[in-house]
């Protein structure tokens, strides 16, 4: 992916740029809103990663509003030290697609970037999702593996659907909480882990190849290859 990073803090900028590059992405880094707006408007990017508070008169929210006003729909991920819920709402209302509060784990940022950057492809209407011998029928809401039907609860179905839509990508616990449960809160303990391991037990029982993998210090990933 080609990513534009607009971040005024040199150290955070360097760290994010390096990480994204190591993950195989091309990154342009500019330190202020004015240059960011110029770059975003004149070149093609797959994703914008914006700090909310930027020097140079144009902050992240203004930048996105301007871009959206011009009909530019490049996905935007906000990075911000402003953690208040209304700040988050403000960012998303302005046209941001995701909001990550500083300080963050790089794995979380990378997972969210990849989820956003590949979104259009997976948003295409599909009635069936398939990974190896696991099949998910979105119409009858049934799960089969190797032709054998697996009983899952509605929430487990949504959890599996989300993982499969992002097959091959890391999905973090907070992403699952936000997308599958639709809440923004701190669950204190890793309640999500319990749900994932339950689902995993159901899927992998009687099969020797596990599909849902735990990615250390990051989250989960569903993929065919071990």
């Amino acid at each position, binding site marked *: 992916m080609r990513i534009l990073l607009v971040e005024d803090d040199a150290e955070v900028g360097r760290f994010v740029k390096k990480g994204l590059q190591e993950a195989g992405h091309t990154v342009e880094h500019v330190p202020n809103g004015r240059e960011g707006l110029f770059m975003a408007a004149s070149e093609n990017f797959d994703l914008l990663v914006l700090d909310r508070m930027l020097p140079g008169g144009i902050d992240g929210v203004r930048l996105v509003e301007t871009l959206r006003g011009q009909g530019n729909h490049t996905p935007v991920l906000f990075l911000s030290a402003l953690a*208040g819920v209304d700040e988050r709402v403000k960012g998303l209302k302005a046209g941001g697609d995701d909001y990550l509060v500083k300080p963050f784990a790089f794995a979380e940022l990378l997972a969210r970037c990849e989820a956003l950057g590949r979104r259009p492809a997976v948003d295409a209407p599909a009635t069936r999702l398939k990974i190896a011998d696991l099949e998910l029928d979105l119409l009858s809401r049934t799960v089969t593996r190797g032709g054998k039907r697996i009983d899952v609860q509605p929430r487990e179905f949504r959890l599996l659907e989300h993982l499969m839509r992002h097959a091959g990508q890391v999905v973090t616990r907070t992403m699952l909480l936000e997308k599958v449960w639709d809440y923004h*809160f701190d669950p204190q303990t890793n*309640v999500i882990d319990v*749900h994932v391991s339950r689902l995993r037990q159901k899927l992998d029982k009687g099969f020797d190849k596990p599909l849902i993998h735990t990615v250390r210090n990051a989250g989960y990933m569903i993929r065919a290859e071990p």
Partner: protein
Amino acid sequence: MPHAVPLAAATRRRGQHPGPLWQLLSSAGFRFALLFAALFLLAGLAFTGVLWWGTAGALDRQIDAAIRADAMALAERWRDAGDQAVADAIGERLALDAENQTLYLLSAPSGQRLAGNLEALPQGFAPDVQWYGMSLERDGIPGEARLFVLPLPDGSRLAVGRDVEEKLRLRALLTEGLAWSAGVALLFAFAGAALLRRALERRLAPVTATAALIAGGDLSPRVPLSGREDEFEALGHSMNTMLDRIAHLMEGVRGVSDAIAHDLRTPIARARNRLEEALANADDPAALHSALERGIADLDNVTRVFQAVLRIAEVEAGARRAAFAPVDLVPLLEDAAELYGATAEENGQTLRTEWPAALPLTGDRDLLLQALANLLDNAVKFTPDGGSILLKAELLEDAIVVRVSDQGPGLSLEDRERVGERFFRADSSRNTPGSGLGLSLVRAVVQLHGGTLWFDEGHGESLDKPGLAVCFRLPLA
């Protein structure tokens, strides 16, 4: 420009060292009293005006009518019988007028006096003016008279007048009365002003004294209330409410600094130690790796505590009420039960639930779920394996009551008092993970929704594990 400076300085000086007169004039009580005195005086003036019009005016009109009637009668007589008859009539009337109040004059066209007791036509006589006021002296006493001059067809003139001394006496009486009452009103005004000022000062003194103490840095004093249900009481009341709120917010700020000192310092120190240790053992890659990882985990924990503290502060400040919307608590209860039910099941615990079909209220969905999550998280943590947890909600007439009950060690009565404080952890929970912020956040969320939080015995089965029930009540309106 240099002139402006001394002027401003003079004004400031007056403000700094007010003289007694300035002090009196700038008193609100004095100004109120003065305003009332002015209104009083104005009412008095209006009353006197009406009185004047009713008495002196009526007298005037009566005299004028009498003069005019007399003059008309004489003019009639002149037309019938001529000058001599009028002169005779005037003579008769003067003879009859014992009090010497009437004035007559009949003058020939040449201006010569033909009859009457008046020497000549009044000064400033003009042919087209009929009514005159004139002053005259009778027996050495100055008086005033009103005169009506009637031109006769042959050019001679007839003047008829009356002494109006009566009216003057009345006027003097009224003026004197008015002056007296104005004086008394002014006296009352000043006395009233002084009284009012004293009363205002006395009633406001406690408020002023309290405000001064608070400005001095002590937030504990409150305005003493008199018990009378008046405006001052209301002022004192709202001031006390405001002070309570300020004190609470100050406590919140202090809580944040306590948090930084208490719960952030420890993990920061721990992370620092680990990193330092890692640096010392840099030649063992496995140890280095795990030390770095644990250091990051410690820092993540610092961030979480930090986030929780900020969130409590945000909720307590009431800033989130803007996000309030109608929500049904039932789906939230279901989701919370589902999220934490799985963990309970892992521990061999059962989560029993009980609620009606719908629990509509106005609130913040994420915060309410956070509150339920914190309570369930605690319940799961403290209930022994194989025990049960009860999550129950009921709809009362005007409120929703939620109860989360466990079978854990419970809380002693002293601990219940303290459990809402930030970072308080009962001795029995020292070995379980947690920041001690969970219940503070629950309490803040409940209070944000206008509700109350309390503790009860849980449904534990043994004496040493009575269990704890955390209950909260959310008002519907």
